[in-house]
């Protein structure tokens, strides 16, 4: 039976310790349910051992649990081969692996990589740098005033020198849900692989990498109720043999000589050094938690909160939305007229309301929209209409304070 959203807050210990907290910075990191925290504590207290190394029971158990999480991830996102899942530090590292370990050797002077204007720096800088390193060009799919991708422009950007398209599923600034299936189909018509940054969507929105015919997908555990420092790279089976190690060390090898190393196959070739075992097992616990939720109910809930927030903000006057996409996640960016986002966030912080202010690691996007910074509210399953009401009241107070 699905967990009830009415009592969902009680599963998150932070709200017991800080009952006054109104947490609207979920796009930065989600709070963690008790089951995830407990799983990590239990691992360190009762089960701690290294993986793939020891011949004793404790290590064998740790290995089994660690490896078992690849299957859980497959179930969560519609993949069928556990060995398509590599564990990384996070979405950022996953993207760097694809840029340096897969793309770079195929990228030559005159080639290009296509990204969108709404990318997080994590899905921009790795491509920008690999293009610089190889004399290739980075092409940008523009974003319109509503905060939606201009897909017609993408048609013109894709050509026979395009080696990869990298695009976010959900914008961390504007909340836009991008039509990734359409983007994938456009790219695949020209045999171009696609990487999707799903940091804002995995665990919150339905995704099926095989049905969507995805080539690469990346996400971080900490934005989906899991621990910090753990992430995932999904690589379609057809490319796994083309992804080379990004860092080198123990655990990733078949055979080492002083002058030569033979690496394990993907994904183990990427997991050099002792991995974040507790983090991966914690990610497994986060997936178990998500399986107890009714995903339709949770997306309805967060969409309703987003709509309610926008509606109330609109009628409170003098607030401007930054982007207003038709198909949107639970993220709203706005500005309070002449009051700087930082000052808005400080004011809200005094009412125990946590929002984000700044450029949200998407500086070029905001510059292209002519806004230096925004205030961002992002909703999750434990937020309530009362959270929205209190935030709106505080914003109305803020206007009075600054008038």
């Amino acid at each position, binding site marked *: 039976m699905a967990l009830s959203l009415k009592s969902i807050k009680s599963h998150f210990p932070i709200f017991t310790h800080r009952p006054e907290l109104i947490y609207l910075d979920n796009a930065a990191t989600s709070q963690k349910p008790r089951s995830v925290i407990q799983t990590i504590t239990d691992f360190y207290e009762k089960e701690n051992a290294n993986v793939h190394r020891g011949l004793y029971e404790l290590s064998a158990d740790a290995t089994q649990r660690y490896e078992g999480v690849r299957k859980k991830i497959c179930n969560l996102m519609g993949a069928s081969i556990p060995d398509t899942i590599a564990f990384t530090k996070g979405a950022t590292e996953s993207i760097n692996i694809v840029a340096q370990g897969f793309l770079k050797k195929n990228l030559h002077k005159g080639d290009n990589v296509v990204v969108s204007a709404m990318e997080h720096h994590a899905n921009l800088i790795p491509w920008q740098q690999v293009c610089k390193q190889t004399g290739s060009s980075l092409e940008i799919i523009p974003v319109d005033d509503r905060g939606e991708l201009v897909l017609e422009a993408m048609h013109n950007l894709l050509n026979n020198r395009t080696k990869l398209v990298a695009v976010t599923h959900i914008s961390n600034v504007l909340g836009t849900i991008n039509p990734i299936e359409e983007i994938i189909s456009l790219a695949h018509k020209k045999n171009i692989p696609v990487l999707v940054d799903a940091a804002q969507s995995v665990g919150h929105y339905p995704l099926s990498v095989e049905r969507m015919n995805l080539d690469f997908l990346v996400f971080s555990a900490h934005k989906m109720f899991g621990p910090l420092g753990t992430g995932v790279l999904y690589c379609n089976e057809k490319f796994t043999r083309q992804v080379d190690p990004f860092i080198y060390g123990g655990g990733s090898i078949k055979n080492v000589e002083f002058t030569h190393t033979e690496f394990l196959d993907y994904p183990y070739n990427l997991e050099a050094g002792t991995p974040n075992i507790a983090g991966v097992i914690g990610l497994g616990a986060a997936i178990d938690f998500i399986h107890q939720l009714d995903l339709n109910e949770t997306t309805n809930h967060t969409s309703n909160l987003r709509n309610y927030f926008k509606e109330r903000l609109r009628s409170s006057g003098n607030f401007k939305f930054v982007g207003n996409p038709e198909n949107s996640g639970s993220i709203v960016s706005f500005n309070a007229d002449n009051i700087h*986002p*930082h000052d808005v966030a*400080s004011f809200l912080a005094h009412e125990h309301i946590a929002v984000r202010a*700044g450029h949200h690691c998407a*500086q070029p996007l905001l510059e292209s929209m002519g806004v*230096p*910074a925004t205030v961002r509210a992002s909703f999750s399953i434990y937020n309530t209409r009362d959270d929205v009401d209190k935030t709106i009241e505080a914003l109305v*107070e803020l206007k009075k*304070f600054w008038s």
Partner: protein
Amino acid sequence: MKGELKKLYTEIIKAHNDAPFHFRKIGDAPHTIKAYNPICGDRFEIFVDSSSTKINALHFHGFGCAISKASTSVLTRSMEGKSLEEALELCNNFLDFINKEIQPETSILSDDFLAFSGVHDFSERYDCATLSWREMKKFLESRQPKHEN
């Protein structure tokens, strides 16, 4: 709640934020100092017209929160016309004051400086208050005559 925030956003800070001192771009300034905070996106440029010994004119332009904008405004107003040495001393005084190494009652602090006392209770705003001053300090240090120790 409002009381605490009033201590942060003092009338002097609000006044500097609303009408900052010498707030305009100078296209041909001899020196342009960039005061950028990549965390929050604040971006100021400080335009310096100085001789080898003195700051003749200071202007600034850009985007930032009320605290960073007001503190840059106080910087330009307090340093214009000062010798490079005096300007560096002002920088050190302001930064020491924000870092709580100078007590507010000390007579060397002007009212414009004291207006930032509230920042002491908002540690997350230290960077806002000191952004331009830290960059200005680097600039001034690079231009001070080297003393023999």
